Structures are given as structure tokens and as C-alpha cells.
């Protein structure tokens, strides 16, 4: 854990010192599952997922670096973002999530498990961007499940899901 804390200093500028980022386009990593964090770092490093900021940062990381970082952020406590969800949109988002059977993988309350990320309480802007990236096949590193699901979502569905997920804790 201490190794991870040290290594995570390089991530603090965007993701916050404890994984609670303050910029809504940078995801909250605190409390994320360590397995997901590790696999995403590995995908950034190996080019299966790309991002102008993350790709060069992940490139030099070793397997141990990635495991240490994953363990550190997973052990941090996520803080509420203070996002002011629109109740009607969040309710529509919940209905869409039920229809899409999201919690079969993401678990009840979107708490996440193993390689399936926690999305409860994540930033609205980040959720909307990722769902859009899946839909538009900008992000394709999840072995087909999310690209398949996102294809069926309208822009409004995605925003509604953003309101719902950001409102969870």
C-alpha cells in the first residue's frame, strides 16, 4: 500500500492525492476495484485503450507499478461529488439501467466487482463521455459487452444514466 501511495503522487494532479479527482472529466479512482484499475492501466500501456493524457503516463509502468497503484486507489474512500442530479432524469436513468440489466455485472447499487468497475457516485461528465465513447467505438477494450449495450442507448439515455449513476453513493 505504501508503495502505491508513493507511486500515486504522479497521479495526484488530475485524480487527487487520494483518488478523489476534482475535475469532472477525470474519473474518481478512490474505491474503484483494484482488478479493474489494473486491467485499465494495462490496456492503456498496451494500447487497447487510448487517451492523450493516460496513454503516455501508463507506457513506462511495470506490472508491479500497476498492481501497487491499483491496490492504493482501491483502498481509498470515495467522496461525494456534490453533483446535483435531476430527479426525473435519474429516474429515467434507473429504468434504462434496469432494462439494460447493468447490475447483473456491475452488482447492486453499481458497487462494481473484480474487472467490472464501480460507477456509483462517478462524475456525470465522465460517465457520459465513456458511454459515448463505447457507443462510438472510441473505447473498445471491454471485449464487446459495453459497445454492444451502448449501441442501443440514445444520447438522452446516456445523459439520464449519467444523472442516475452520479446520484448513487
Amino acid at each position: 500500500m505504501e508503495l502505491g501511495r508513493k507511486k500515486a503522487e504522479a497521479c495526484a494532479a488530475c485524480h487527487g492525492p487520494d483518488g478523489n479527482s476534482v475535475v469532472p472529466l477525470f474519473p474518481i479512482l478512490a474505491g474503484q476495484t483494484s482488478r479493474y484499475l489494473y486491467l485499465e492501466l494495462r490496456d492503456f500501456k498496451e494500447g487497447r485503450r487510448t487517451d492523450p493524457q493516460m496513454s503516455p503516463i501508463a507506457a513506462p509502468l511495470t506490472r508491479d507499478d500497476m498492481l501497487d497503484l491499483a491496490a492504493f486507489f482501491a483502498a481509498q474512500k470515495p467522496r461525494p461529488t456534490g453533483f446535483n442530479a435531476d430527479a426525473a432524469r435519474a429516474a429515467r436513468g434507473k429504468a434504462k439501467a434496469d432494462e439494460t440489466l447493468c447490475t447483473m455485472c456491475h452488482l447492486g447499487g453499481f458497487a462494481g466487482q473484480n474487472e467490472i468497475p464501480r460507477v456509483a457516485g462517478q462524475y456525470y461528465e465522465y460517465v457520459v463521455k465513456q458511454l459515448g465513447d463505447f457507443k462510438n467505438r472510441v473505447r473498445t477494450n471491454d471485449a464487446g459487452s459495453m459497445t454492444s449495450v451502448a449501441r442501443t442507448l440514445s444520447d438522452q439515455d446516456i445523459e439520464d444514466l449519467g444523472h442516475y449513476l452520479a446520484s448513487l453513493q
Partner: protein
Amino acid sequence: MTKHIALASSILLIFAAAPAPAQVTKQINVSQDQLARAGSDSRNWLHTQGNYAQTRYYPGAQINTKNVRKLRPAFVFQTEVNESMETAPIVVDGVMYLTTSYNHVYAADAATGKELWHYKHRMGPVTTFCCGPNNRGVAISGGKLFMGTLDAKLIALDALTGKLVWEKQIADPEKGYSETMAPTVVENKVLIGTNGGEYGIRGFLKAFDAGSGSLLWTFYTIPEKGHEGVWAEKDATGRNMHRDIAKEKAALSQQGGDFYQTLGGGVWMNPAIDLKARTAWFVAGNPSPDLYGDERPGDNLYTDSLVAIDLDQGTYKCHFQYIAHDVWDLDAVSPPILVDVKDRSGNMVPGVLHGGKTGHVYVHNRKDCSLIRFSQTMIPQENMWVLPTPEGARMLPGANGGVEWSPMAWEPKNRLAIALNLHQPMTYHVEAAKYPGGSKLWLGGAFKVIASEKQWGRVSAVNVDTGKVAWKHDTEQPLIGGGLATAGGLFFFGEGNGSFNALDSATGKKLWSFNCGAGANAQPVSYMVRGKQYVAMGCGGNTQIDFKRGNSVFVFSLTE
């Protein structure tokens, strides 16, 4: 050292006021003979599915159609895990052993609910599993309990103390292997399959030595050669599955058959044991990836199949495939039941029953796995077998079935297999996807429920000699969980809204209900302590259908 002892004693003194942790004080030693005769033992519940034939039929009749209205909670056993509960408690000589999600095991007094011990499995750093962190229970033999874990281990616990005796890595969790099923123990062999059909595993049933944990044999549900099968065009009921067999054959000759290593075929539920014929009967689940077939040309044997293997050697005896080259995840999960059935000429023969996700009960001849008959449809079927599309194609039943993992119960008097069904209209979506290395969910698409169409559940009782539905009982929500039939003429089952119910097993008439406050989606069992019959049901909800979570096992008995 002395200092440490002094410190330890002072800690002991501080806690001296607290009662010493209880433990099992009687001898627990379950013999093979007891395990083999469990079907006529009304005192104990020794197997997850009741007995080696897996009938989930309880032979006691103290609680019956006449008095079931007086059934009330005797106690509620609360665990510390508030998550999906699928356990079937094992009860031996008044001691209950139950499990929770994330592999906790509890021993409790089966008449009072007093906790005797609590074991928490120390989970490895990597787990990979689909459909919830479930566990469906322990198996018992001698003085040991056996449990499969989410990090793909098999562990043996001392039934008296809950202490770990041995643990064995069954398979690699980084490759998508995990365990949620309860093992079956027979003649010191612990039989266990594997989850992972959603991650590109190669399924199996393995036998481990109960004493040492050493591996005795492995039967792979995917053969290295010949998994392409007979290029079946029709399913078990004669309907065309719309395969492009010429294209599949070309793909196979081009890419070869090495994908057997990632072809799926998980084994989610207990095998039934025919001791006389020395045969283990089980069903194998879906091919990987679930919805995208181009990666895996051929019938994908023995996915979606009933399989019989030699109990002593683990070698192939026969199989029957329900759906070849499945692209709907309508696989075979509910555990097979061994009972005698009428063949097509009306002669009684040793048979095997399986409740399918397709919504049929299949009746087989144990001689050669052949299908004798399939039942009337228990739930609506539409557009079978329309192929999944990127935009989504509607077909009924939805991908959860029909009969999911939910074990059926056998009602011998009227010769009924009683099945819990779901009706969840869905669209099936396909998405091209290469094997992602075992670490990521690999469905090759998705399924979605259709929001505008109502979902519901149905208990269906099928006469196995005619295939006709004798009675049905509809519920407001899809059904998932186990059934229990009793000699008292009752059928017990639970619903996602918390209702735990008793029906008249001959007619389906509802006689009793109690709301547990969380999804009653585990597997009910019954037993006796000091002459009194109890019925136990885990009510912790369900991940797969997202029913309200809870943490408790409810135990009922008759009021005086």
C-alpha cells in the same frame, strides 16, 4: 515469549466476561451409507439437492396440507453478508451448515439458531465471476465440509470447529474460473464443476480425494477433438436453429479447432449420482462467447448438453445436446434428477429429467441419454430461433430462461417435476469480439429486457410420463431459486418480493405464505430436530434478477 503469554492472559481476562464462542459439541460423522440413504432420512438434509437422485423431495409429513397454515418462524439466522443468497443449508443431527455470498460458512443450532461457528474464506487477490458473488452451499462427508470458492479453490473444513483442513486450487481465477456451486461427495470423492462460460474457460467436472484434496480425475466438458459434433440443424424439439453450416464448416477447416480451450461449457450445479450404474449425471452450460458464434464453428460439444460419465474414472458414457452452436445463452443449468419414467412404449425405465432454460422439461432414458419426450412449453416461446443482431432481436424466452439454475423438485405421488420459471422478454444483441484473455467478461454481445413487456414467473408441474403440464401457479415476478416437495403434499418455493410460499403439490393451490422482507431466492430444505419438523429458506435476494438483498436464513415450524 513469557511476556507474550502474560499479555495474552490479560487480553483473555479482559474478555472473560464475554461468553466463550460456541462450537459443535456432538460428534459429526456422516457415513457413505447415510449419504446414499438420504432420500429416506427425514431427520437430516445431507445433500444440496436432497439426495443423490437430486429429487429435492423430503420424506417427512409432519408439516402437511392440513396444518401448513400454522407454519411460523422458529428463528431467523442473520449472517453478516447482505448479498445475493442461493445456499441450501445442510443439516446433520440438529446442526445446520449454511453459506453466504463471498464464501462465509456458518454452523448453527438447527432448532434454536444459536451460532456455533463462523468461517470466512480468505479470498485471493484475483476473482473473476459472472452473475453475483454467490455460493450455493457446502457438501458433507465424514466429519468434513467441502466448499468451492470464488477464487476457484476447493476447501475442506472441520465440521466441529470450522477450521480449515485443506485447500486446493482447482483452476486459475485469472482465466475466468470461479466456483459458486455446492460440491457433491460420494465415496470420498468430492465432485465439483466450474463457472466461467462468460469468460472463455474450458469447462470440467473434477473429482478430488476427500481426505487429502488430491485430484483423482478430470472430465472436460469440451473434448479436444470432435467438438464440432454432427452439425445439427435442429434443436432437441425439432426446431430449426438457422445455422449457416457451410460457412461454419469453412471456418473450422480454415481456423482449426484449437478454440476448445476457450469454448466454455461451465458446470454450475450438482451432478446426480447413480451408484448402481456407477454414473455421474450433469448438465454443461453455454459455449463462449455466449452470443457470438463465428469464433466457434461446430456444435460446440458438450455445451448445452446432458452428460453422463463414469463415476470411478471420469470417462465419457453418453451425452444429449439440447441446442447445438447456441448463440442465445439458453443453456443447460438446472441440475438433473434421476427417477424412473415411462418410455415411449409405456414401460418404466431408469430416467433423467432436466428443466431447460427453453421452458421445457426434458425426459431422458438413462440407458443411452436419448430423449424420450419433452414437456409442453411451460412459458411463452416466440420467434425461436431468430439469430441475434447488433440492434437486438426479440425472442422468447429471454436469456435467463425458462428454468435458470433453479433446481426442480420431484413429487412422486402424481409423478410431477415441479419447475420454477421466468418470463423475461428480451432482445438478443450480437457483437464481434475476440477472446480477451480470460480477464474480461466475454459475451460477444448483450441481452436487454424489453421495458414495455411485463415480466412474471410461473411454477409449472409437469407429468414426466406424458409431458403434460398438470398445474401451474403464476407469480408477479420472475422466479429464481430452488423448489422443495414434501411427503406432506407440499411444494415450497420463494419469490423475489420476499414471499416464501407453500402450494398443494398435487394441485398448485396456494396454502401458505410468509414474507421474509428480502428476496426468497435460495434453496429451501427440511429436516427434524427432537421430533419436530423445520423448513429453512435463505432470503438474501439475487444479483442476476436484482431482487432486494438481505442477509438471513428463515426457519419455520408449526405453532403448538
